């Protein structure tokens, strides 16, 4: 039975290596802290040149553009950053309370002028700063936020450039371009403070035009595709998208889905690529106008004497290339009226080839297409579910990193794809990037003894900045870029004619089958068995000669690699990566795991559990689709999600589960 030779003593360098690693980790953290301190202390002296505090509420594409426009205006007039003017650039990254802190910091740093991008930033600035000029931009209505009562009667230290977002004119343009469509619609984010205002304006205009206008709520970028489908099912002939923070980042997804369904899109600002028609102003121009006002202030004019100005007249932009991809024709009289006409270029010809044209007239959304897109999303979420399964079930580690590693995967894949990397390779690279993030969470916990939850929170928080660095901005569009689906078309040209959801579904399914098989195989190998044991019984696995800490690190690396893989696929499916797309990732993953476990018959083994967790991911997306479909009040969407998960958890405990063969683990 037993082997006669004694066990070989393991090598002694292990502990040494552990020590070196610990020291290296601490040194790294100390280095970061040190450089931060250095960085902060370097700000302080600004010589005699003006110091402009530039603040924006979050890294939205529109606000980033406004800021760039602002800098351009300064540069064009000879204000060179760090030579003739000092700029302190701050961003609250979506956390509004931080804005107040930023303003106080500005005062402390001796800022001489403040430039704000967005209404909330302007509001906070006006509250804190009263003794020096504030020049605002990217504000739709300065009177609503009490900056003044008319362009000339306003707070003495405040002036700025308002951006016209004429949603009513956009609807009029839509009506003129597509007179046959009698119902128009939009997606809106119920959490957006201005959504109600814009909806009111556009609905009043619709009444006057004698057409109907409907709105469907979306609470996250991943709901955009389903939202567009829901609009179609309500009979809209096209979309006039009102300005919205959430939709702004997800605009490529909206374009993609609308194009699939043959719904023309009219945008309400000019920074929304892919729409055949846009009626509005550009945030970049607005930022430029803001910059010009700032220059007047810098040259000594008092803000009190500078009237508010509207940055530009609303422009009508016709994108003939985009129109071609939608398969729509823009009436010549509209083209004649346009401020700017973007011709159909060779580029857009490529687009036409890449994205199959649909004839809109005869087309309507059938039930199966709606459910198909929910299923495709679900399949892409399977890897996420597996990642959460490893951390929460195999390792029993409450890991929060996925809220950061999911967008990390998206960011890495999108950046690489835009840079020309093969999409499949980019997806694999995203997997490895995710692994690194999980490994760091593991290190924080095992080597620096940070508690499990806190380690995850720290890495997740840090990843927000890392993701912005990776992308270089808050949002990368993958619209009309090559994706894993392009690869399918390359291998099997016949598939290019398929609807994109089917292509994505096929590719995702194949990828997940491969990944799932590898994953199930891995967990059954000698190494994988030890990994499972490390979560199941730490005392036992240590007694069997395994360093549990190493196992925890590797398991978390694997878990977050899988999560990032999902993120990479979702980015390609929805057509963009966004810094904010991680919100709610963990909930979706946990829901999939719980659903999968509940649906699984008691006696099933590991491989089957893994399969059922994937099914759980699909079922979860399906349940959300049901909620959208039955016309649930959109505000209650998240409530319904929570209720689904709760019901799944509670069912077996209520004694109903047994009857259906459900078992709680």
């Amino acid at each position, binding site marked *: 039975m037993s082997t*006669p030779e004694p066990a070989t003593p*393991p090598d002694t360098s292990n*502990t040494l290596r552990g020590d070196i690693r610990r020291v290296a980790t601490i040194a790294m953290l100390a280095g970061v802290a040190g450089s931060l301190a250095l960085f902060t202390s370097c700000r302080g002296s600004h010589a005699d040149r003006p110091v402009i505090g530039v603040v924006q509420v979050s890294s939205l594409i529109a606000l980033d553009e406004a800021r760039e426009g602002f800098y351009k205006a300064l540069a064009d007039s000879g204000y060179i950053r760090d030579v003739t003017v000092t700029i302190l650039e701050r961003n609250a990254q979506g956390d509004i309370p931080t804005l107040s802190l930023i303003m106080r910091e500005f005062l402390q740093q001796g800022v001489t002028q403040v430039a704000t991008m967005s209404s909330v930033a302007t509001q906070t600035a006006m509250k804190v700063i009263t003794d020096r000029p504030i020049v605002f931009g990217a504000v739709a209505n300065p009177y609503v936020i009490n900056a003044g009562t008319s362009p000339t009667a306003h707070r003495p230290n405040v002036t700025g450039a308002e951006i016209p977002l004429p949603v009513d004119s956009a609807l009029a343009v839509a009506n003129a371009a597509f007179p046959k469509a009698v119902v128009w619609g939009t997606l809106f984010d119920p959490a957006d403070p201005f959504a109600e205002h814009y909806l009111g304006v556009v609905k009043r205009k619709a009444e006057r035009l004698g057409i109907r206008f409907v709105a469907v709520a979306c609470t996250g970028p991943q709901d955009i595709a389903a939202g567009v489908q829901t609009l179609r099912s309500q009979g809209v002939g096209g979309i006039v998208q009102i300005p919205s923070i959430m939709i702004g980042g997800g605009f490529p997804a909206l374009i993609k889905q609308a194009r699939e369904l043959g719904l023309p899109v009219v945008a309400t600002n000019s920074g929304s690529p892919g729409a055949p028609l846009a009626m509005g102003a550009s945030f970049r121009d607005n930022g430029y106008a803001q910059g010009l006002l700032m220059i007047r202030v810098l040259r000594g004019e008092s803000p009190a004497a500078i009237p508010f100005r509207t940055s530009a007249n609303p422009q009508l932009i016709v994108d003939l290339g985009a129109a071609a991809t939608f398969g729509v024709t823009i009436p010549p009289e509209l083209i004649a009226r346009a401020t700017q006409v973007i011709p159909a270029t060779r580029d857009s010809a490529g687009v036409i080839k890449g994205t199959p044209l649909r004839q809109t007239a005869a087309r309507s959304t059938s039930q199966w297409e709606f459910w198909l897109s929910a299923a495709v999303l679900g399949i892409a979420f399977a890897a996420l579910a597996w990642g959460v399964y490893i951390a929460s079930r195999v390792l029993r580690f409450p890991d929060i990193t996925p809220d950061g590693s999911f967008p990390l995967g998206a960011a890495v894949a999108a950046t690489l794809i835009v840079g020309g990397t093969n999409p499949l390779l980019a997806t694999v690279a995203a997997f490895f990037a995710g692994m690194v993030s999980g490994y760091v969470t593991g290190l924080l916990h095992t080597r620096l003894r940070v508690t499990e939850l806190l380690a995850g929170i720290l890495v997740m928080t840090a990843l927000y900045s890392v993701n912005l660095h990776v992308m270089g901005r808050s949002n990368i569009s993958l619209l009309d870029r090559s994706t894993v689906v392009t690869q399918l078309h390359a291998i099997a040209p016949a598939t290019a004619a398929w609807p994109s959801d089917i292509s994505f579904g096929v590719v995702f399914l194949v990828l997940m089958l491969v990944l799932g098989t590898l994953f199930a195989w*891995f967990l059954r*190998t*000698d190494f994988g*068995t030890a990994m499972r*044991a490390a979560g199941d*019984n730490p005392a036992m696995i*240590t007694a069997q000669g395994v360093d549990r800490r190493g196992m925890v690190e590797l398991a978390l690396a694997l878990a977050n690699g899988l999560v990032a893989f999902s993120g990479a696929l979702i980015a390609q499916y929805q057509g963009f990566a966004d810094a904010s797309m991680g919100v709610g990732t963990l909930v979706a993953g946990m829901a999939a795991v719980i659903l999968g476990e509940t649906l699984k018959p008691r006696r099933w083994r590991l491989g089957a559990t893994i399969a059922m967790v994937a099914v759980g991911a699909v079922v979860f997306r399906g349940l959300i689709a049901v909620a959208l479909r039955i016309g649930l009040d959109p505000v209650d969407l998240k409530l319904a999600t929570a209720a689904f998960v709760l019901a799944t958890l509670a069912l077996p405990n209520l004694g109903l589960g047994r009857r259906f063969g459900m078992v709680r683990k």
Partner: protein
Amino acid sequence: MIELSAVEKTFEQPGGERVPALRGVDLSIPAGQFLTVIGSNGSGKSTILNVIAGTYLLDAGTIGIADSDVTRWPEHKRAALLGRVFQDPFKGTCPSMTVAENLRMAELRGKRRGLRLGLDRASLERYRAGLASLGMRLEGRLQASMGTLSGGQRQAVTLLMATICRPMLLLLDEHTAALDPRAAEQIMLVTDHLVRTHALTTLMVTHSMEQAVRFGDRTIMMHRGMIVADLTGDERRGVTEADLLVRFAELRYTTEMRVTKDLRIAP
């Protein structure tokens, strides 16, 4: 051959009070010896097992196993040389895995765990034979989930796991304490059988005087962190449970005195 010399370990209570658990213990276990350790609660008998296993690192002294000085080795590294059975039947095995998977993990103790499916026909046959040798009719449960086994059955499997690749030292930590008397007796017989067949060097901590004298070939008694009696050979033969209890009381009295005098610790 196991060597403990001048081993010291003190625990700090949450209140800051320092409780000495081992005070300068010297112990040498020759290869092939079956040593039983008895002592009252807090005598240091479990601590001595845990410092050998590496659960705690020493404050002072050294520990040698075979030719290696393992004093600074972490627990998982020492595990390569040791076989362990815990008092808690849930602690030695993974409940969510099968009996075969548990045995496979034990078979790889101290070896490289690679990316291959370890459970092949040959290994399953090996485990079946091993289970059969326990005489507990477990050979048919190879694919059963560990969680479905009784406490006694789990301890039997844990014993098999601890001895599946011959350890330099088998550590038994009151491994029958949590079982009912019948199961405890059965596990002791299995233990004795395994130790004798493989001629294993063994350290068994027990709370039962009866087990201490009936099994093994040397018994040490611990009290207040010291070895206060060491019985072997003729001296040990013929000693009954009752003798041991009397002796225990005597020794306890004398050491109490000594400790009070030497270390100035209030009784």
